[in-house]
């Protein structure tokens, strides 16, 4: 298997807050797989994702995508379109993910016009909306007319508009009600199969991760503490922190347990 993403000793230090958010993090994501990065708040998982995407410059270390260094934004004019087609991102908050003033048609049409001026825009917009399970009737809607699940679907369509190879899903289903979350998880599984996408799936929710991810990387304090195939990780976790995480998830027969004393 070839690694489509290679993170090499990625480090992010915020001088102003004297915070080491990500500490020499290295991992590979293989072509066509879904790698989940799991961790709690402050683990550095989102910062790592943002560095991979290029939204944040690493303090040190590098990101290789398809064997080439991926630079952080702003990108030089000549490389913008190509870099955009490598990685797209879907965010957590359905409310701030879309431009409130743009209709669905405008949101998608603008991207198509920029990336592929020749394309039949109307047909492509319809095709994208179909892909994410929304019909043509959504074209004239604005974000304020959409439910949370529908907004996330539009955000996914926007990401797909440039035919990217990789999607970074940063807690993309966390803000959704469980019944809608299940719909979007199924959609994401279908899209990966149909389009041969590679996913980097950032989440705090082990149940959700189990549903979508082939492999898991558990982060704590900016470092990877354990990486394993998802089923192995869940059935025989090795790192004490992974065990703690797993034990904390409610489910049949589960009882809340506390350690001796509170920390922090």
């Amino acid at each position, binding site marked *: 298997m070839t690694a489509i993403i290679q993170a090499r000793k990625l480090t992010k230090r915020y001088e102003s807050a004297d915070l080491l958010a990500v500490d020499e993090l290295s991992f590979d994501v293989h072509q066509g797989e879904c790698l989940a990065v799991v961790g*709690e*708040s402050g683990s550095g998982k989102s910062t790592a994702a943002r560095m991979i995407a290029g939204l944040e410059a690493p303090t040190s270390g590098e990101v290789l995508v398809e064997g080439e260094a991926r630079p952080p934004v702003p990108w030089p004019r000549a490389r913008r379109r190509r870099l955009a087609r490598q990685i797209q991102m879907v965010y957590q908050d359905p409310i701030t993910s879309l431009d409130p003033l743009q209709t669905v048609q405008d949101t998608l049409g603008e991207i198509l016009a920029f990336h592929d001026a020749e394309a039949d825009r109307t047909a492509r917009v319809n095709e994208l909306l179909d892909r994410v399970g929304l019909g043509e009737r959504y074209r004239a809607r604005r974000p304020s007319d959409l*439910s*949370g*699940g*529908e907004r996330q679907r539009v955000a996914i369509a926007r990401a797909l508009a440039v035919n990217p190879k990789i999607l970074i899903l940063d807690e993309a289903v966390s803000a959704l*009600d*469980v*019944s*809608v*979350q*299940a*719909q979007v*998880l*199924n959609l994401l*599984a279908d899209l990966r199969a149909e389009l041969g996408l590679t996913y980097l799936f950032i989440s*705090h*929710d*082990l*149940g*959700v991760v*189990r*549903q979508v991810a082939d492999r898991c990387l558990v982060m704590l304090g900016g470092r990877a503490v354990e990486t394993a195939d998802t*089923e192995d990780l*869940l059935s025989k976790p090795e790192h004490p922190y992974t065990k*703690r*995480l*797993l*034990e*904390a*998830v*409610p*489910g*049949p027969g*589960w*009882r*809340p*347990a*506390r*350690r*001796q*004393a*509170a920390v*922090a």
Partner: protein
Amino acid sequence: MTSLLEIRDLAIDIKTATGWRPLVHSLSLSLNRSGALGLVGESGSGKSVSTRAVMRLAPEHSRVNGTVVYDGEDVNTMNRGRLREYRSRQVAMIHQDPRSHINPLRTVGDFLTEGVRHLPRGERRELAVSALADVGIPDGRRRMDQYPHQLSGGLLQRVMIAAAVMTGPKLLLADEPTTALDVTTQSEVMAVLGEAREQHELALLFITHDLELAAAVTDRLAVMYAGTIMEEGPTAAVSRAPQHPYTIGLLASQPNVRGARRERLTPIPGRPTAAHESGPGCPFAGRCLFAEDHCRTERPAPRLLGESLVRCHRAEDPEIRQAAARIQEES
């Protein structure tokens, strides 16, 4: 056992530009002394607004019908003094976001001792320190002088629990108290909450969107959808042998961490609807995989099936039983 809290036919409507809009529809619940009742629902189900009605806190521009009886006394007819006493000594509430319910400019100690001002100063402090120790904060003396921003979300929620039990209430209302917390912190806060309940013989009304979490800490469960309770019964029955298609759907949507992996989730189609969006029939009919014509025209009344009250015309249908059985197998 007599019930401590009895809600009968609670209906809450809110005034909008186009007229009255229902939020909660004929809700009846009862909670035993030192019992724990989970109120589970997705966003907009009316679970929070119902809970606030227990405190006689109604949203602005709303009308509330029905009765809330606490310990044999109608909360809605309490006079001002009695209501104040009820709110400050009988019932305590903890919220999803403790930071917005604590004065950021006052210390944790000030906050904790607020409810016991009638005691002498030294005694107040001792009481607060021991209350902190009870919720797993051993260095209470140091914490007392800290400000809310110096505490993590999990610690602050423990402080809220400590403050809640200090006034010796009999009923604790917890509105998504761990939703904003990490899962390991959630586990600890829920454990602390459980210990506090046991120690103080507190009854708990636990509001959450997480059915599994509610199932772990309650003895009865009520599942709400669009302002209506769809299924209510003993926790084991509702969470392990659900009878209402909505409860079944919630469980089938939930990815599980233990047991067999679900190859594919079975989501509930559509999006959660609010009470005012329901037609004349069952509020869930529009999303229900088992709905028939009469489900859309006729509002089902709650029926006692086994130990649970189920609001569904078709609850005993073998098709629905099968769906429930599938979930049980998977978990």
